[in-house]
């Protein structure tokens, strides 16, 4: 494999990691607020905070890792994205900042504050919407390069079916992934009333997820026919993803094997995400940056890959330790520790 392919694969893997862990977090915020409004908060909110408290900072680092790595491997992306994303990027930063810090602020106080719960829920949906803009504009057609540098065309962005379908897909996927995870976590905690509730959420959000995926595909064929054609060539990959989706929903519907169901969800997204990524190539940002044209120098790429491998030796054992303490430690999950 060439350096640039190693680089983009690693980054894509971490973006996928962020997609999963952040979706759990963002969706949980929405469900916590929703439960409060429908007076069911006593059922699930403890469960949610037990899982989230120790891990939110780690979730954030996944994101930081992705964008720092992207700039490192592909410095041209810093130029094009930096120039064009000032406003959506800044909005995303503000939302992330409000969400992260207020989560910590409230952690030792009460969870009763209505405004706080509202912010926590609303940011959970707005952040994915804002962040997904970066993927949207990478399809091309939304930015132009002029004498004065690169500019984002807001008119195009807000009137395009593709960008709205991506936003819609991002939001429903967040809710789907999150509810699927919470069902698993509730099951481990042996918390039947909570399980009952989040299982219903999971079933509810499954069909919008698949519908949104389809509409996004259709919109893509308008926005970037070349990319659409490459995706069609990889049709079997997306077929596998749909198969995992059906398996996950089936298991949840049966009320059995929640762990396997969540693994099926992770595989569903893994396969689809890599299918999307593979068909996106050779362009990183259509038509300005390509994989091989935008990559950094060889010496830097080698250095980054070496650091990455060394870093994994540090990271994987630590992550395993974290998960054993808070995800797989039955007593902790049940609230006995």
């Amino acid at each position: 494999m060439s350096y640039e392919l190693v680089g983009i694969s690693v980054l894509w893997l971490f973006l996928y990691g962020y997609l999963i862990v952040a979706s759990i977090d963002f969706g949980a915020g929405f469900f916590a607020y929703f439960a409060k409004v429908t007076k069911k908060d006593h059922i699930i909110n403890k469960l949610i905070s037990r899982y989230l408290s120790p891990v939110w900072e780690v979730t954030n680092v996944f994101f930081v890792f992705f964008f720092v790595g992207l700039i490192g491997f592909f410095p041209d992306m810093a130029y094009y994205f930096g120039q064009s994303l000032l406003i959506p990027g800044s909005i995303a930063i503000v939302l992330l900042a409000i969400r992260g810090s207020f989560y910590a602020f409230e952690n030792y106080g009460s969870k009763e504050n209505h405004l706080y719960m509202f912010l926590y829920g609303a940011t959970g949906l707005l952040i994915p919407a804002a962040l997904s803009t970066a993927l949207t504009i990478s399809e091309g057609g939304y930015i132009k390069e002029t004498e004065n540098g690169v500019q984002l065309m807001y008119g195009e962005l807000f009137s395009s079916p593709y960008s709205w379908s991506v936003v819609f897909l991002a939001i429903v996927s967040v809710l789907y992934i999150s509810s699927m995870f919470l069902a698993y976590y509730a099951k481990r905690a042996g918390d039947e009333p909570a399980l009952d509730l989040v299982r219903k959420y999971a079933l509810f959000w499954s069909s919008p997820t698949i519908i949104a995926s389809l509409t996004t595909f259709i919109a893509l064929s308008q926005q970037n026919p070349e990319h659409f054609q490459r995706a069609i060539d990889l049709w079997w990959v997306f077929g596998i993803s749909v198969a995992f989706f059906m398996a996950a929903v089936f298991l949840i519907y049966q009320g059995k094997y929640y762990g396997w169901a969540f693994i099926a969800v992770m595989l569903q997204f893994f396969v689809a995400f890599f299918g999307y990524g593979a068909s996106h190539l050779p362009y990183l940002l259509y038509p300005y940056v390509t994989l091989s044209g935008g990559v950094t120098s060889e010496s830097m790429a080698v250095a980054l890959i070496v650091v990455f491998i060394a870093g994994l030796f540090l990271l994987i054992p630590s992550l395993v330790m974290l998960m054993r303490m808070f995800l797989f430690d039955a007593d902790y999950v049940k609230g006995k520790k």
Partner: protein
Amino acid sequence: MFDLDSATLSRMLTALTLGYHAIFATLGVGIPVMISIAEFIGIKKKDPHYTLLARRWTRGFTITVAVGVVTGTAIGLQLSLLWPSFMQLAGKVIALPLFMETFAFFFEAIFLGIYLYTWDRFKNPMYHWLLSIPVVIGSTLSAFFITSVNGFLNTPQGFELEGDTVTSIQPLAAMFNPATPTKVFHVVSTSYLTAAAVLATIAAIYLLKKKNTLYHMKALKVTVVSVFIFAIATAIAGDLSAKFLAKEQPEKLAAGEWHFETEEGADLVVFGTLNENQEVENAIRIPNGLSFLAYGDFNAEVTGLDQIPDDEEPPLWIHYMFDLMVTIGFFTLGVSLMYLVFWKVKKWNEYHPLLLWGIASLGPLSMAAVEFGWVFAELGRQPWILRGFMTVSEGATTSPYVGWMLILFIGLYIVLSIGCVIALRKIFKGNPAEHELEHRYPEVAATKEGN
């Protein structure tokens, strides 16, 4: 509404975010060290007061760390959003430490999560203490990596520029540039110093409020002793930084010291004002002091501003930033030394209100010194963003919306500050140390409490 150009507005927004992040980053590097020290003493002396100290500091730390993380994420993204051309160029050369920093973040975040939620999970408390070590290492490493990036901006090396293309890139040479050693030493030591000083301030204020409990006295002791040690390290590191400047970045030192003519045996100008002919008035002059500061030799020759092209001269008012920083450094050293003397001499009272007021001022002053130091260091690099290669205005975004973003972020930092203060008050007001001591360690509270 915004008459300023994008480059100026980008500077203001960067300064705002970095200046704000610096507060929490400094605490983020230093407080884990203090927590680790207190927990260790608590275990070794079997003294629950120290353990409680570590526990309560940790709880406050969760709040400041959160602001550190979110503002750090902000600056990380803003670097590309506001300085796209600069990041495109510099990213090719200096990506390595930035990337390594994310691993340091991972390491710190993971172990902090574990540390916070496992206080009572282990039979042997030493295991819990051991978890603080990776947190200390992780946060100090992130200071190391980011400071080496900043060093690169001041003394870039490890690449060649041919027209617009960068070639012969050597990532390690860029990372270990001439500025890295002294800068890292100074930034790390001042972070430790500032964290200790802020915690000392808190202890001193409680004692001034006549809450003379053993708990607060012990808190004062451990923090002020740490302040003293870290203040010595800071002064040494600061002196080394000045020597580094004399050698590698003479224009910054010359502007900071108002040193106009290259000469041997140069005087050190302390405070003072400039008249319209650029002559120094009202200053204290330390004969041959600058030569000594710069080279450790009273007669050495020090480069003056006459050797620097006029359009590459940093702004002269950074002189005050330097002087304030150094003054605070020596004041901190003096006050903490006085506490030690009063404590060792049995007849003298180390809890004298005047001394306590002095200690109480150290936290805010150190934090101010950190800010002054950064302004000095960053403005002393003007007009360069990458010294010798790219000016600040060449690196900036051309987007017309930077002004609005500046307003947006001012709003954000106001909200964060208010939230942070409210959260800290809620944690500590509702649950004073005395109550918690009684609650957690009833046996100690019953026997040892009181003056």
